[in-house]
């Protein structure tokens, strides 16, 4: 039982890492949205499998994950993307090759960081921990390096996914009340960011964050 379960978990979390890398690799916002949708679906599936092996409450969590992050948020992202019609990502600070290189360095760093944890826990899903950390660092890198406001929002959402993954893999899911609170925050955070993107578009008529550099010193 343990082997297949941990294999599945490994598969799921590495899948999420791959979707994060897609954002670094591709250049179009629609591609980022699909990457994010895939990542949320994988996370929901992973939570369900852990629920199957762990306690049953995680099914509800998986369902909530699927509904909110798998369907609702990508749809809102889609409408926003279509409305602002921003096809191509402006030239990011770091070109694709270098970003992927940095991503690999970050993954190695996550593994280095995760090494002491392996000794600590006997959970079958412990293989997923370093992966969760690497997804976290990669999404941080996305937020820092990409110029479009929408891409930064997607980076932030992927960061939320990474932490949810960490929770699921590390502790078989935090208590339900906390899970519900985190969902609420993620949703409200996203909604507020969406409102702000409309604000930015109205006042700056560009979503390029470099324009937001008037407040200095």
């Amino acid at each position: 039982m343990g082997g297949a379960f941990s294999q599945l978990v490994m598969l799921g979390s590495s899948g999420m890492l791959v979707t994060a890398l897609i954002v670094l690799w591709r250049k179009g916002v629609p591609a980022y949205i699909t990457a994010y949708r895939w990542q949320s679906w994988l996370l929901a599936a992973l939570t369900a499998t852990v629920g199957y092996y762990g306690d049953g409450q995680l099914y509800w969590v998986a369902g909530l994950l699927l509904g909110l992050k798998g369907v609702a948020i990508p749809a809102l992202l889609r409408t926003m993307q279509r409305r602002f019609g921003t096809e191509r990502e402006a030239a990011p600070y770091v070109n694709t090759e270098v970003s992927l290189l940095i991503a690999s360095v970050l993954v190695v760093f996550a593994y280095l960081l995760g090494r002491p944890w392996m000794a600590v826990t006997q959970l079958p899903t412990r293989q997923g921990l370093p992966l969760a950390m690497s997804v976290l660092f990669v999404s941080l890198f996305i937020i820092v390096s990409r110029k479009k406001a929408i891409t930064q929002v997607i980076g932030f959402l992927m960061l939320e996914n990474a932490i949810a993954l960490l929770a699921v893999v590390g502790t078989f899911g935090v208590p339900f009340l906390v899970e519900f609170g985190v969902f609420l925050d993620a949703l409200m955070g996203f909604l507020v960011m969406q409102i702000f993107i409309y604000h930015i578009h109205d006042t700056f008529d560009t979503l390029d964050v470099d324009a937001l550099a008037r407040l200095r010193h």
Partner: protein
Amino acid sequence: MAFGTVALLVMAAGYTLGAVLSLVARSDRAARVLTAVGAVVGGAGGLAAAVSVLATRVSVDAVLPTVVSAAGGIVIRLDPLGAFFLALITAVSLPAAVYGTTYMAEYDGRCSLRVFGLMFNAFLLGMSVVPCAANIFTFVMAWELMAVSSYFLVMTESEHSETRQAGLWYAAMTHLGLVLLLPMFFLIAAGHEATAFVDLRAYGATLTAGTRTAVFLLALTAFGSKAGIVPLHVWLPRAHPAAPSHVSALMSGVMIKLGIYGLIRVLFDLLGGGPAWWGGVLLAVGSVSALLGVLYALVEHDLKRLLAYHSVENIGIILIGLGAGSLLHSVGLRALAVIGWTGALFHTLNHACFKGLLFLGAGSVKQQTHTGNMEELGGLITRMPQTALYFLVGSAAIAALPPLNGFASEWLVFQSLLAGAHISRPEIAAGFPIAVGMLALTSGLAAACFVKAFGISFLAMPRSDHAAQARECHWSMRAMMLVLAGGCVVLGLAAPWVARGMSRIIDGVPGLSAGEPIPPSSSLWLTVPNSSAQVSPLLLAVLLGAITVAVLGAIHAGGLRVRRADTWGCGRISQTPRMEYTASAFAEPLRRVFAEVYQPTQDLSINMHPESRYFIQSITYTSHVVPWFEQVFYDPVIRTARGLAAQTRRLQAGSLHLYLLYVVAALVAALACAWWFQ
């Protein structure tokens, strides 16, 4: 309760009431009167407390532990040393307060006299509590209250931009004092819970040599910045002229003395004296301050700024006395050391007296002529005879001319320097003659400076119509100047009696006392133990008086005929004020002699007549003396601060990505630190 405690309560109540009532006064005039009433009542209380302690030599204790008990609460203890300084404060603050009521009349409507009243009484309260403070928190609280309220007093005429500049310099330097005061006290009380001075004395004895040196250096800088020793005196010539005159009299005459009080209390009372080099440093700093103070006073042409520089000089003289005393004490010649300390304390009292008088005189001149620049004054002796007389008494006293009080205390300081001859170790004794040379040069230059100050401002013909229309000031102002002038004369003539009182106070402080009982000294002669040098100011005054009366009688008996005529001018028709000697001309020879010290900047511009090259239209020559140590010490500090600030501003460059990069960098740093310290 003991009389002393009641008096202290009256003092505190007087000042607080004065502050509150003047804040809520209806009219400007009422505010002025209430300020003075509060100050006088408080001052009287303080004086009574001080005199009772000095007379009975029994300290007065009062504790308000409930207040801010976490930081140690308010603890008051007035011992003889503190009482002497409290007496000095109240002796000058009473006349200054009364003088201020009429002097501030010209500020009616121009600035808020209510706030001025509040700050004036708060300033006096802060100053009076400092000598009574008996634990760290009370001392530092009173110290800062004094600094804050005096900052607002300096800022009363805030419409002038140089007053604002002066205010900023003053605030920064006094805060530097506080910033050094805290670590000094905490170093002494290191590790122990109790912060009362009684415990600090016990801890002081057990400090290691390194900590004692650190405490000495911190104390010298902290109290030096308040007293105005040379590198730290830059605020003094800026802040004192900016404040109203009776406030600068208090600041210059009394507030800087609390720096001296702090030095004595920390170095000699809490730490109980130190190694010989402490005295050497005090002596060196004192001599340099004295000399540079008087040198810069010489080339100064604003009356109040000149007096401010002289405060630096006199603080230098006091430090010479302290330095000589502590050097002799550390070498073991304790009886001789008492002369040095007596001279220093006596000069502190004298300086408070004549500096207060001079500033009040300058205030009257400024009130009548609306200018402090000596080049525009002149001929005031005929228009303001009494102010001129009191200013003359003050000038003679500060130039240490017998039989006034300045001479007595400087004579004692000279004798303490001469006592250096008895020191066996040549490397210590060698410093004393150099100090004698510098002190003598300082007193010579001081005499020259005050001839200029009095001569140019008061004598001959008025150089501007302001000076010409000057009238004698209000009688109350003149009465207060008379009180202080009388003080100078009485302190001068009764010098031996006052010196005996001083040595009894010094005996009270463990770090200073000579151990054996004080030898009885006559009340007519100032004497020096185991040396028959003696001087009697009273006898000198009597001899001078007798001779003058005799000669006057002889001349008038022979029928003195006096005829008024024009001043002789080599056949010139009329004598105009433009022909008189000016202040800059008077100081020019000395400026040329000490050119290396002044580093004067000179620029000469000759512009030719437009039509032809051969005719000169005008020649303008300007020369300024800018104190070089401001360039050497203070400009680099300000430049580095602004440079660092420019760098930090670039940190906030506006780009969101950069900010996020900072967060990630901080995360990596923290994780590395966690990983490193596993």
